[in-house]
């Protein structure tokens, strides 16, 4: 199945997946079943906007405005990142 998010999809982190402030390493990690994913600034920027309410389109628009970048480029990057998480069941959509 295609895991690409549609503009109206509202992504969320399911139970058992959460952001964690890793004070020892000075970074934010995504904790998932038996896995810790080290996030860069972009990953953090995306996932702090993933809350089950915001649509994929709204998240893109918000990031494009915040980082003053072309929405199309942002969409490609965010789509690739979220599809990767979805394939591992670290992300789901309403």
């Amino acid at each position: 199945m295609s895991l690409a998010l549609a503009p109206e999809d509202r992504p969320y982190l399911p139970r058992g997946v959460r952001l964690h402030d890793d004070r020892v390493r000075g970074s934010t990690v995504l904790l998932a079943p038996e896995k810790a994913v080290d996030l860069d600034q972009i990953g953090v920027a995306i996932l702090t906007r993933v809350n089950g309410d915001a649509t994929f389109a709204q998240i893109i628009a918000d990031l494009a405005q915040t980082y003053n970048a072309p929405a199309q480029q942002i969409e490609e990057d965010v789509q690739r990142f979220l599809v990767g998480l979805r394939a591992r069941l670290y992300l789901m959509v309403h």
Partner: protein
Amino acid sequence: MPTPPPIAMLAELTHRCPLSCPYCSNPLEMAAKEAELDTETWISVFRQAAEMGVLQLHLSGGEPASRRDLEELTRAAREAGLYTNLITSAIGLTPRRLDALEAAGLDHIQLSLQGTNAQLADKIGGYRGGFERKMQAAEDIAKRGIPLTLNAVMHRQNLDDLDRTIEMAVDLGARRLEVACVQFHGWATKNIAALLPTCEQTEAAKEKVAEASKRLRGVMAFDFVPPDYYADYPKSCMGGWGSAGLNVAPDGTVLPCHAAQTIPHLQFENVRDTALESIWYDSAAFNAYRGTDWLPEPCQSCDRKEIDFGGCRCQALALAGDAGATDPVCVKSPDHHRVVAMLGQADDESDLTYRVNA
């Protein structure tokens, strides 16, 4: 290169278990109940681990539900900031205990599967009625929405059942299926002939997992641990000795991996006497095979040395007689013929030797 902090800790809360699987990774000499760490000491270990940078805590055993304080330990681990994963056969996980574990903040359950039907599963687990109790518990876990991984331990006697195993995992609502072929440590070393898969089974399993992970993309994720005797290169044991994870045995002994006590010349320290941080960074055992400086040839000049770190130390000891040798699984190892010879030992008529509790 400075030693990084550990990411994961396996807490073997107890060696006690109602099952007696013939491939149990517990050592042949198991700790008795009286030797186990008490609740307060475990909680102190969890706090120390979190402060050092451990993110993932695996509550394991034996069967961790054999500890009456499992709920209290889970709560304390979660409060310390750890991601809590329960590795269980689910025997003893009643609805009441599941409720209490949920309330304590348990993040995830990894449920072991010995077989896809009662006849096979109860034969492997050596516990009549175990399969039925496990299936009931799996339903109770799914009903609560607790994130679930099914860990199917695969070998010669159940690999042909892989399709059904995958179906079952989907039906049980698992988000992830670990197809874990038996690794020959602990009790499994007594059962190599009966458990070693055939080359055909190994190839078929690889193809089935590849096909199913494509077909079920977005429905269930897969992890595949192949039987490394058929591989060309060894697995990167623990991601490198003393680099990512540590293991605390029921009596508080701290190990770089669950089989490390088979290496007789290493002395392992105990959390009853020494701080976890000091054991991780400073102890002789954790530094014995850390990094790549200690690697022998052919590893030292091999371009894979940062990938597999010479493979598994316990396997090198078991098969080559030297824990400091290249893992004989590697085709470049001068001892590789010993692995090839092992493959010839497989035998469908061989009886199982079950683990015996302390």
